[in-house]
């Protein structure tokens, strides 16, 4: 059985139109995924809906076969689905350490919290050096590391990461992708949304192409990258500048 199943999910904001018009996809444990597609395709909306921030208007979100529709974000997190939003959502006047500890807000056990914190510092040694610094004073890449590290505090089953490379220099973005690649060794299933489709697809196993609120195509990531038809139809605009170089 799939770990996470999304079936005919329709969602949108406030009284606005449907952004997702019926998305169906399934996430298996231990595989990594990237959702690509043009601007406004509904990629972020899909992650926000799965995370419980947005309520689906129709359809079903199932985790391990259990219907999760209408669950709050804290309930989804407790069930093992962690969301890393695109704006490096940190607590700016708390230190790096305090931010990471906040990631373990749902953990009751102090000893466990301390162990996880050690584990995060091992995975992100750069953060250990800056643990007493206020998160608001970090660079964009470092802030992204904190949000990634924070997501490890609850030992989630699935981490959904929205645009991790947004606003980062290419070299820094590569470091971030490398860290995300390391999540798999920790037994975490990664679902990535990435504007930089090539980078995103290169770092995962399986790709979903989303357009106008529904899934248009799915397949092995390298297959999508190699398919000229898909590149032209859905990824064309983003690839053009890179190819011209």
């Amino acid at each position, binding site marked *: 059985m799939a770990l996470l199943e999304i079936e005919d999910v329709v969602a949108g904001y*406030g009284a606005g139109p449907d952004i997702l018009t019926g998305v169906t996809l399934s996430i298996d444990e231990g595989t990594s995924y990237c959702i690509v597609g043009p601007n406004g395709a509904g990629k972020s909306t899909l992650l926000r809906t799965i995370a419980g921030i947005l309520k689906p208007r129709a359809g079903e979100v199932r985790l391990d076969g259990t219907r999760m529709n209408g669950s709050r974000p804290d309930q989804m*997190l407790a069930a093992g689905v*962690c969301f890393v*939003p695109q*704006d490096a*959502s940190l*607590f700016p006047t708390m230190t790096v350490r305090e931010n990471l500890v*906040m990631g373990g*807000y749902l953990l009751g056990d102090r000893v466990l919290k301390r162990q996880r914190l050690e584990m995060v510092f091992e995975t992100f040694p750069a953060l250990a050096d800056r643990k007493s610094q206020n998160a608001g004073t970090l660079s964009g890449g470092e802030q992204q590391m904190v949000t990634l590290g924070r997501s490890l505090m609850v030992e989630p089953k699935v981490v959904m990461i929205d645009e991790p490379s947004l606003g980062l220099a290419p070299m820094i973005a590569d470091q971030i992708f490398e860290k995300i690649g390391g999540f798999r060794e920790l037994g975490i299933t990664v679902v990535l949304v990435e504007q930089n489709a090539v980078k995103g697809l290169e770092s995962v196993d399986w790709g979903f192409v989303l357009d106008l609120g529904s899934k248009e195509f799915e397949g092995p990531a390298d297959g999508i990258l190699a398919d000229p038809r898909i590149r032209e139809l859905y990824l064309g605009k983003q690839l053009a500048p890179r190819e011209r170089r």
Partner: protein
Amino acid sequence: MNWVQLLVLGLLLGSVYAMMASGLTLLFGVMRVVNLAHAAFILIASYITYLLFENLTLDPIVSLVITMPLMFGLGVIIYLVLFPRIEGSARYVEMTVLLTFGLALVVEGLLTFVFTGTFRSVRPDYVSTSIHVGDIFIPSNQLYASAVSFALLIGLWVLLRFTKTGTAIRATMQNRGAAQIVGVNVRRISAFAFGTGMALAGAAGSLLSFLFPFFPGKHWQWIALLLSLIVLGGMGSIKGAVIGALLLAIASAVVTDTFGPTWSPITFYLTLFLILLVRPQGLFGAKLRL
């Protein structure tokens, strides 16, 4: 009057203002709600204290144990009934201003209906006594009100600093989205914070009832003063609200002594204007994007 005397009077009243303002700034910090009805709720507590004193001769300080939980409950109910409807709105800030302005009018109308517009005051024995230390005199009622306010401020600090709920409140104040992502139930925390702010309003009402005479329209005067305190300190900063309140109360005491009591209220707004010219975000406020 000598300076030490003015300083003492300013600090006594300032700590009461600080406690009132910290409740209001807490609401703003957690929910981005400028609660224009805050002073109206304070008055509800003043009238409850008045009733308890007149009918049961209950000491107004003791009546805090009734007004605080009562206002906490009222706050949670008001939050849960009114706010989830407008939470997702694109015009959230505007709507909260109108909503709380409306609440203030409703409360004023109800209080006028029940208690008429007559001035009331609660007069336990200590209203007319004072303590003398050297040539400094300390009015007993102000001393007690100040001590209670100070204790409540310490309580609030302990709550925010050392409890799990407090940590969640601080996290929500800094970044509501991030708090939600790490598993804080922001609606429950908001309801709790609203209740806490209202409980402080309840305490303030009980204390003010024996410091100043009051009538249902009095809340406009209080809310204007409270808003100037929290804007001065930096919206959403409790430390700022406390320091702003102490500074302004001292300034007001000095102005009253030098120019006469007529000029006292203007101290608050004049200081506010001057400080905002130099620091638009207030003394301790972060630059806000609303």
